[in-house]
């Protein structure tokens, strides 16, 4: 015997997760088109690792394995890890990152729905703290053939300097430290029209996938709008004050992980804020901290650290931003004397 409602909408966690995977396809396709098939290999390695870790942890925790594997959440984590890492990492780094995310980031906290931190961002932070040199090598547009890329990822000789270099964010920082100004640094071949050469197109594709998520009501407008708005605002104010030392808002919106973060990372419902006002605060906080790390920190990008820092604040944000309940928005007409 079960109770009302007997009528259910045709929806499932699996459907939500598969939709997210589909929305990631434009950016993945764009990156493969511009930078080669290394990314696909990374996605395959991350997916296999995530599914294996998920199955192992579920059976250790004596939970139904098949049902939970079918929900697709491990695949979403795996894909997000694969796309936020530099594309030509050796395979074992991807395995380390992914297994950390699934085992420690997800299951040790209680599995799906219980993790306080974004698992993909945990993986990114573990790897960048442990392997800073490898994590700052990003391929440029000149590219390399598929066989070479496979060889690098699967652990052959790594003569990466020929095709990889610092990210635009790194190049900008290094240049500014050497007393060059922004416009001079941006003459380097690593830069395209407004941000990283090629990467700016990938960022736009993330934006397109994000709009798809919005249209399908998987995410609400609050987080992307507040994220991009706050990023444009803080970078814009700094840029207006001193354009020779601070990059333009357009650069910050299309560089690094801004678009990916705004639409796919910060919108993770499990580790993010849930109330409408809370989402605005949460996303704006991430953008602010990410910009601070970009402008004054020592890492190539700050999105991952910013997300983890704001994940910590989520319980507080949620409690402080509870929306008013029906009938409790205004005082009753007799001034609440009842």
């Amino acid at each position: 015997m079960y109770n009302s409602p007997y009528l259910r909408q045709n929806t499932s966690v699996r459907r939500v997760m598969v939709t997210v995977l589909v929305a990631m396809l434009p950016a993945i396709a764009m990156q493969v088109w511009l930078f080669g098939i290394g990314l696909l290999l990374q996605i395959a390695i991350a997916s296999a690792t995530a599914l294996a870790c998920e199955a192992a942890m579920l059976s250790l925790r004596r939970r139904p394995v098949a049902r939970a594997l079918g929900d697709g959440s491990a695949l979403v984590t795996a894909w997000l890890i694969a796309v936020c890492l530099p594309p030509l990492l050796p395979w074992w780094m991807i395995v380390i990152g992914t297994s950390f995310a699934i085992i420690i980031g997800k299951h040790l906290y209680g599995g799906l729905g219980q993790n306080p931190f974004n698992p993909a961002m945990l993986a990114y932070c573990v790897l960048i703290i442990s392997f800073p040199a490898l994590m700052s090598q990003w391929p440029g547009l000149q590219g390399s053939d598929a066989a070479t890329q496979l060889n690098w990822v699967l652990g052959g000789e790594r003569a990466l300097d020929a095709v990889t270099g610092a990210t635009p964010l790194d190049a900008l920082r290094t240049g500014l430290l050497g007393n060059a100004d922004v416009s001079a640094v941006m003459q380097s071949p690593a830069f395209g029209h407004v941000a990283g050469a090629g990467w700016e197109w990938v960022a736009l594709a993330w934006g397109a996938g994000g709009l798809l998520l919005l249209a399908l009501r998987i995410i609400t407008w609050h987080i992307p709008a507040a994220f991009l708005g706050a990023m444009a605002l803080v970078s814009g104010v700094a840029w207006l004050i001193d354009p020779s030392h601070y990059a333009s808002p357009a650069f910050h919106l299309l560089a690094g992980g801004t678009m990916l973060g705004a639409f796919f990372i910060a919108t993770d419902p499990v580790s993010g804020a849930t109330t409408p006002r809370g989402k605005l605060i949460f996303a704006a906080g991430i953008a602010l901290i990410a910009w601070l790390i970009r402008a004054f920190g020592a890492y190539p990008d700050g999105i991952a650290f910013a997300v983890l820092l704001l994940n910590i604040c989520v319980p507080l944000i949620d409690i402080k931003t509870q929306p008013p309940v029906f009938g409790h928005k205004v005082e009753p007409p007799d001034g609440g004397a009842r």
Partner: protein
Amino acid sequence: MLNKLFSFNGGVKPDPNKSASTREPIARLALPPQLVIPLHQHIGGTPRPLVTVGSTVLGGQRIGAPDGNVSSAVHAPTSGRVVAIEPRPMPHASGLSSPAVVIEPDGLDTAIERELFDWHAAAPGEIRDFLRDAGVVGLGGAVFPSHLKLNPGKSGHTDTLVINGAECEPFITCDDMLMRAEPGNILRGALIMQRMLAAKQVLVALEDNKPEAAAALKSAARALGHASLEVVVVPTRYPAGGAKQLIRVLTGIEVPHGSRSTDFGVQCFNVATALAVWRALEHGEPLTRRIVTVTGNVERPRNFDVAIGTPISHLFAAAGLKPDTDKLIMGGPMMGIPLPNIDAPVVKATNCLLASSPTLFAPPEPELPCIRCGECARACPADLQPFELYWHSRARNFGRAQEYKLFDCIECGCCAYVCPSHIPLVDYYRYAKSEIWARERDKDAADSARERFEFRNWRADREKEEKAAKLAARNAAKPAVKPADGAAPAADVAPSAGEDPKKALIEAAMARARAQKEAVAAKNTDALTPAQQAQIDAAEERRKRASELSGSDAPVK
């Protein structure tokens, strides 16, 4: 007149599934061999039976008298013989029984002579009493006695009377068909209610998926020609027919949980209730029949005009229950209750009987963990955060659940309808609410037990003090007469210098009283049987314990 509609947040748009049961007009269902008329069919006191087993009754005869004012009368729908007055299974999820009058119709359907009532000339209080005795209660599902709501209260007037024909739940069409069949009388009932409430305007509201009913009401309203009466079509969105949601849509007013809409100048009745008021006052007809939608997994879905007390099985037989039915529901698919017993009777609250099959309503998929996606919060018409309520209810953290306004939940089911993790959210809220009620009952019981105990101790202390004071007063008056008696105790206490002589007197008096009591006690404890002695010993023991307790923590002084 009404130029702007408001909107409530949330809500869902399930497939209405209303067309199947509106193809045929309302059918009057033949009487069953036995009618089971529960005495308690409304909110409030259980009526007293007015008939005895074996007595004959006439159609419309009162068989249950209202128990106080928060109650309503119950009537026989037809003539026949009372064959039993006993507990019978009720259409309630618990499957519990409740007292009912069982009538065997004689087939003649002889009606009692109608008590005609000149409501035009009657005072509002008399009209209310008449409606109470005619058994008129809210037919929208809450079955609250209508006479109690037909009172404008202290202010003496009402701004808006809402007549609710929204009928937002899928499958249910009884109000729709009633509005199509009797629009004029519904509006006449509404105008009587308007007069009783001194309401400035009457808004008859229904969802825009009932164009036939809307057209019928509108032309009836034109024929009546009342400027203050308006038929309003509101957008179809479940639960637009919830009283609070409908009031919000029509007036923009949000009535908080625990408040009455009359405090905000609004009163709301179901369309069928308006018709029942009209029939009772104009024709002296008590409420003995209602319209019931029989739909879902049946051969001939339809609305039936049914005598209250008709077994539910009788309705399903008329509609042709399909063999693969796995569940029977009273109400709609969003808020209906599962029926444990097909022989339970139709009551005043029965608006719809819904047969379910695995293909119509698939059994719920396995529950997955909540991913905090917030779909439920977007769907909640009460602006709650359903996943937080779920989280705290599941953790048995009921205090937090109440902080998140658990009791503002109207159990409409929107959250569970949209949940991608298939969590039976409403079940968690029902569980949390019943746990909180149980704890409050326990706490109330403990509180009143403690209060009784403390009062008893206080009374014992007070009696002791009074007695002592009285003796002391008598003693204080004595010394002049008997100085020798008074001197001896005074000398005794003198060494403990500075003591109030009065206190000494009191002590002396108490010592005398004790001695006296012992002497008295001795008299009637001579020649006791062992049993009596044991009883006395036990009583002494209890008294000693009680005095120890009162000595240790008696807070009342």
